[in-house]
């Protein structure tokens, strides 16, 4: 049960993020969650949006370099320790976490973690064995 995340290349100069955001907003794309990774030289915008097909079209038309990748989402309680439980589970299974970001949800005053691993199948199994439920794309929309 994976989520399709869209990432966009951002050149390291003023206004690049704003330009992408403006294109998306103009076309009515809603970002559910996002994070920006930055290096000395460039940035990567990663986002979960409400309409991937539309987003990809907007990006392609705008000449952006983008990519769709599988990430995992887990809904957790907005309480101390809930992140630790997941990290410990992944650590014990020697799963390498590439990156992670989170947003708080309206439903149940909870939080949702989005993370990227190199081995999706193994991670899904490990989390399921530990009784941690992955959120589907549909569920994510309801959060």
């Amino acid at each position: 049960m994976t989520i399709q995340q869209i990432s966009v290349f951002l050149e390291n100069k003023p206004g690049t993020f704003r330009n992408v955001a403006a294109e998306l907003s103009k076309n009515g794309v809603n970002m559910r969650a996002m994070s920006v990774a930055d290096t000395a030289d460039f940035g990567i915008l990663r986002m979960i949006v409400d309409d991937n097909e539309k987003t990809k079209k907007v990006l392609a038309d705008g000449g952006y370099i983008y990519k769709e990748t599988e990430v995992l989402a887990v809904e957790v309680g907005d309480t101390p320790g809930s992140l630790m439980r997941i990290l410990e589970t992944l650590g014990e299974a020697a799963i390498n976490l590439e990156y992670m970001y989170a947003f708080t949800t309206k439903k149940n005053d909870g939080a949702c973690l989005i993370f990227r691993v190199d081995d999706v199948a193994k991670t899904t199994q490990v989390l399921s064995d530990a009784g941690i439920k992955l959120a589907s794309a549909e569920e994510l929309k309801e959060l």
Partner: protein
Amino acid sequence: MEKNYYQKELETMEREQLLALQNERLVAQVKHVYEHVPYYRRLMEEKGLVPADIASVDDLHKLPFLTKDDLREAYPDGLLAVPKGDCVRIQSTSGTTGRRVISYYTQHDVDLWDECCARAIIAVGGTNEDVVQVSYGYGLFTGGPGLNGGSHKVGSLTLPMSSGNTDRQLQFMTDLGATILCCTPSYAAYLGESIADRGIKDQIKLKAGIFGAEAWSEEMRRDIEKALGIKAYDIYGLTEISGPGVSFECEEQAGMHINEDHFIPEIIDPETGEVLPYGEKGELVFTCITKEAFPLLRYRTRDITILTDEPCSCGRTHVRMKRPMGRSDDMLIVKGVNVFPSQIEAVLLNEGLSANYQIVVDRVNNSDTIDVMVEMTPELFSDVAGSITAKEKSIVNALKSMLGIYAGVHLVEPRSIVRSEGKAVRVIDKRKI
């Protein structure tokens, strides 16, 4: 396949016979220049030379060189060898380096130039059945007029497009079924991208391209051939000598045959001026032996190349030159190291990057810096920053081993590097030296 030549007897002439022709033409030309160009006569007199001292090509090395500085000093007509009334045309350099240079032509000069271009078109398989799209600039720049004239001589249907207006280029290319494209390699690459963007590759009937007037690499040739579904051929020339067609590639794509019945090439050591044998790398020098109006003798091109007299299987006997490896005057010296933009391009293409790059040279705290801006590609992009920085590092290492110095690599947005529809701006040198 039946081999075709525009002027078979001249293009495939036995070397001995060709040398006899060159001797005869050189002797007459030196006399013509001595008598009609006071500027060059003075240079000869300074060396104690009279026309009788030049009896054959063996004596060529005795003659003084001409450089772009001489052309500037003699501007606008100090090197003209016929009355202005005998001239029918001027052309001028595109002005990428220094001040403008003007070259004059009589009708005879235009004809021989057109014939050289006709040889080039036929060498890539052109016939009167072909549709030749000339997308070099027209006007003072020699690219458009040269290939246009050559195409007329061949009897091909000529599309005098000039450069720019890509929509119109592609419309004529598809509607009229252009089969041979003539333009700069960077514009050919750009047309290739535009064709892919529009998804119209199946409507393109091109079979060959004749590309010159700027530095390119074998990797770029392969990219263009793939993008346009053609064979891409090199052509070489310079306004001072006539224009494109001074040399051109045959179907072997293994160096450009110099039209030696018109232009005698020499390779010299750029430092000492000493003539080097075939096979050695040095600066290319030309002596025009048939031109009337602007017959430069021993003109230093600043292009660095190698000549070979190895027989070519195409049957042409004229010596071949390698694509210039750089110009001694656009060669960058960074931290005391000689850097050719073509070396950097080769590394980028070899690393699977786009051919759209820009080199920025600067001086920070009295030390030279060199940075290469490269456009991001979908293949290179990843949502994981580490995999992109790892690739950047491998490019930096590859550049370091090629150049011997550190060059920074910066990834920029696609299509953010200006694509000039004439000459690409490859180097920005910000140093105030």
